[in-house]
C-alpha cells in the first residue's frame, strides 16, 4: 500500500443505522484531504478508528501500513491530533500543559514550540480553564504540532473561531502542508476545505458519497453565466439562440446559461448585439457539486 492512510471497508456499527459503513479511502503522502459532512455523519468516528481509539466492527484502517487498533501507540508517534472537543488535563496554565506534553514526547528543546506560539500570537500563560475557544484551539494545535509529526489529523479545528482567527488558523495549517505533511481535516463547512484541500471526501449518514478532486472542480470546462437584459425583446431573442439555458427568470428578463470554455468567445461576440444590463459568472462551488452528487444518489436509490 502506497497510502499514508488507508481505510479498507471500515465499519463501526453503533446500531439503529448509526455509525460508519464500508468506508474506503486512501490518502497519499503530502496530500491534504478535507473530510466534509453534516453533524453526526461519521467524521469523528472515522478519525477515532484511524487513531485506534475505537475498535472497528468490520474492515481495517492503516496508518503507515500499521493497523490502527493494534498499533495505536506506535502510530500515535507519527500523528499530530487536534480533537474536536477540546478538554485539557487538570493543569493550571497553558504553559504547564505544553511543558507536560513535551515531557510525554521526551522533547527537551522548546524552541520550536516557542516559535509556533509566537506565530500564532498565543499567550500560553493564561489559565487553561478560562481560555477562549480560539486560544484553546491554538494551544491544541501547538500541542499537536509539537513533535513535528508527518501526519496531521484535525477534527473540525475551526468550529467556533471568528472569521479572522479562522483565516490565521487555516494559514498555519496550509504552511504545514507546504512542508510536505499529510493532512486530514474534517469540517462541516464546504468553503473552508474548498480553498485549502487537494481532495475532499463527502460523507453522509456513514457512507462516503463522493471524493472530489478540487483541481477538477476549480478548473471545470463548463462555466455558468447569468445574463440580464434591459428589454424583453432582447431577452426573448436571446432565448432562441443555441445556448443551453439552465435557469430562466422571466420577470427579471434574466437567464442563466451553461457554456463550454471554448465557446465563451463566441458568446461575447453574440452578445454585442444585445442590450445587456449585466453579465456575471456563477461560480461553481463544492457545495453545488455535492448537492448534485447527493441528488444523483437519491435518484439512484429511488
Amino acid at each position, binding site marked *: 500500500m502506497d497510502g499514508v492512510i488507508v481505510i479498507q471497508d471500515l465499519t463501526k456499527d453503533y446500531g439503529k443505522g448509526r455509525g460508519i459503513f464500508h468506508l474506503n479511502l486512501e490518502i497519499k503522502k503530502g496530500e491534504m484531504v478535507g473530510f466534509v459532512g453534516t453533524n453526526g455523519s461519521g467524521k469523528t468516528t472515522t478519525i*477515532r478508528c484511524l487513531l485506534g481509539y475505537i475498535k472497528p466492527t468490520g474492515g481495517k484502517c492503516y496508518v503507515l501500513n500499521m493497523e490502527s487498533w493494534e498499533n495505536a*501507540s506506535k502510530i500515535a508517534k507519527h500523528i499530530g491530533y487536534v480533537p474536536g472537543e477540546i478538554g485539557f488535563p487538570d493543569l493550571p496554565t497553558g504553559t504547564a500543559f505544553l511543558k507536560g506534553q513535551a515531557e510525554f514526547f521526551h522533547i527537551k528543546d522548546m524552541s520550536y514550540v516557542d516559535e509556533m506560539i509566537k506565530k500564532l500570537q498565543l499567550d500560553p500563560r493564561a489559565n487553561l480553564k478560562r481560555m477562549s475557544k480560539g486560544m484553546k484551539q491554538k494551544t491544541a494545535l501547538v500541542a499537536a504540532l509539537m513533535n513535528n509529526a508527518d501526519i496531521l489529523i484535525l477534527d473540525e479545528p475551526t468550529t467556533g473561531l471568528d472569521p479572522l482567527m479562522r483565516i490565521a488558523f487555516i494559514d498555519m495549517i496550509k504552511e504545514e502542508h507546504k512542508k510536505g505533511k499529510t493532512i486530514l481535516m474534517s469540517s462541516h463547512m464546504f468553503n473552508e476545505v474548498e480553498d485549502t484541500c487537494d481532495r475532499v471526501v463527502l460523507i453522509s449518514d456513514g457512507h462516503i458519497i463522493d471524493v472530489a478532486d478540487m483541481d477538477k472542480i476549480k478548473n471545470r470546462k463548463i462555466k455558468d453565466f447569468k445574463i440580464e437584459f434591459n428589454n424583453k425583446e432582447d431577452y426573448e431573442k436571446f432565448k432562441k439562440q443555441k445556448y443551453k439555458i439552465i435557469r430562466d427568470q422571466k420577470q427579471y428578463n434574466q437567464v442563466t446559461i451553461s457554456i463550454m470554455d471554448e465557446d465563451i468567445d463566441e458568446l461575447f461576440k453574440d452578445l454585442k448585439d444585445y442590450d445587456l444590463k449585466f453579465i456575471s459568472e456563477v461560480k461553481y462551488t463544492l457545495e453545488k457539486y455535492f448537492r448534485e452528487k447527493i441528488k444523483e444518489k437519491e435518484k439512484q436509490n429511488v
Partner: protein
Amino acid sequence: MFSKALFKQSCKANGIMWITITIAVCIMLACLMMISGGGNLGEMRTGITNTMVQDTMDKQIQSRALNYYNITDNTLEIINSYDSPNPTNVFLLTDLKKYIDEICQSNNYQEGTDEYNEVLALVYGTIIDGIDIGLDYTYLTKPIDMKDEVYMREYASSFLSSNMVSEQNVDKVLNQLSQYSIDEEDYKNLTYTNEQGQEVSRYTGESGKVYIKDLSTDSIVTYLARLEYELESLDPSDPSFTEQENAIKNALIAEVGESFLSSLPQSVGESLQELGTMDLFNLITGSIFFKVAGLLLPIIYIIMVANNLIAGQVDSGSMAYILSTSTKRKQVVYTQATYLVGSLFLMCLCTTAVSFLCFMFLDTSMITMTYGELALLNIGFFITLFAISGISFLTSCWFNRTKHSMGIGGGLNMFFLVATILGLFGSKVLPSVVRIDSLNFFNYCSIITLFDEMSILGGTTTFIWKLAILVVVGIVCYVIGAEKFKRKDLPL
C-alpha cells in the same frame, strides 16, 4: 509499563487534595488519640463506676443497719419478757436460739455459714455483752437500760461497722466488686471527708468504721422517725395491727435499701456494669476512627481521584493528549493505578507515623493497646482503602462518563461507609446501653466489615483471612479495570 510524565501530571492535578486530606485525617487521628487516651475519659469512667459502687454500698449498709436494728429490737423483746434477764438463763438462751433459727430459716442461711454466725453473734451479743465470739465489741457502749432505743441503735450500728471493716469481710466485698472491675486500690480510694476535713477511706480502717457507724445510725434514726409517723395513722386496737406494722417496717427497709443500680431495670444495670469494664481507647481509636470516621475523608479522596485519573480524562477528552503521545493504554492504566495506590499508601504511612507519635505521649497504663496492634490497625486501614479504591478505579475504567463512574463507584463506596456507620450502632464494640442490635444487619452489607478491628484488638487471628479477602477484592478490581480500559472504545 510506567509513564513518568503521566505520573507527574497526576501528582500535580491531585496533589493538593492529597495534602489537604492527609493533614485533616492526621489531625483528626491525633486529636482522637490524645482525647481518648489522655485519661479524661478513663477518669470519667472510673467516676461513673465509683459513684455507682458507692451508692450501692451505702444502701446496702443502710438496709443492713435497719435489719440489724430490727433483729436487736426483737431480741430485746424476748429478753425483756424475762423478769431478770441473765446471760446464764438457759431458757432465755433457748428462746434466743429459737429466734436465730427462725431468722436463718426464713433467709435460708445454713448453720455454720458466715451469715448464720453473723446473726448468732448479733443476737447473743445483745445480751452477752463482752462474751468472746470472735468479734470486736470495742465500739459497743455499755448497756445501761436494756429498753433504750439509743442502746439498740448504737449496738446495731457498732456491730455492723466493726463487722464491715474486718479483713475477712473486706475481702468478701472486694471479691464481689471485681465484676465491676473495682480492685482493692479503687475500693480504698472511695473516700469521703471527715470532720477534720481529711479525706479518709469510706469502707476500710478506723475511719471507715466511723463512717459506716454514722451512716447506720442516721439511717436507723430516719427509719424510726418515719416508722413512728406511719404508725400514728394506724389503730392499735385493730386486730391486724401487728400485721400492718410489719408490712410498714418491711416497706421502709426495702425503700431505704434500694440502691441506684437495683432501682434501674436490670438490663440497664448490666450495661452500666459493662460501661465500667469497657476499654474506651480501643473503642474510639480502633473501632470509631480506623473503621468509620477516619475512612470518610480518604474515601472522598478515592472517589474524586479515581474518577479524575481515568473516567474524568476520557469524559473531558484530555485523555486524547496522553494517548496521542504514543503512551500505551496499558501504561496509562498502570501509572494511574500506581498513583492511586501509592498515594493511599503514603497517606497510611502518615497516619501510622502520627498514631505512633501520639501513642508515645500517652499514659499507657490506662491503655491495653500495644504498638503491634496499632500497626496492625494501620495496615488494616490501608488494605480497606485499597479495596475501596479498587472498586472506584474499576468503575472509572469501565465507564466513559464521570457521572456513571462517580455515581456507581462512589455511590457503592459511600453506601459501604454509611452501612458501617449504621452497623457500628449494632456491633458488639458498643456497650449494650447504646447498642441497637437490629442495626448489626448493616455490617453484613459492607465490605468494610471485613476489616475486623475487634479481632486485631482481641488478639485473635480471624482478621488475617478477612483482610486477605479485601486484598483479593482490591487486586481483582484493579485487574478487571485495567483489562477493560485496554479493550474498550474511547470517545476521544
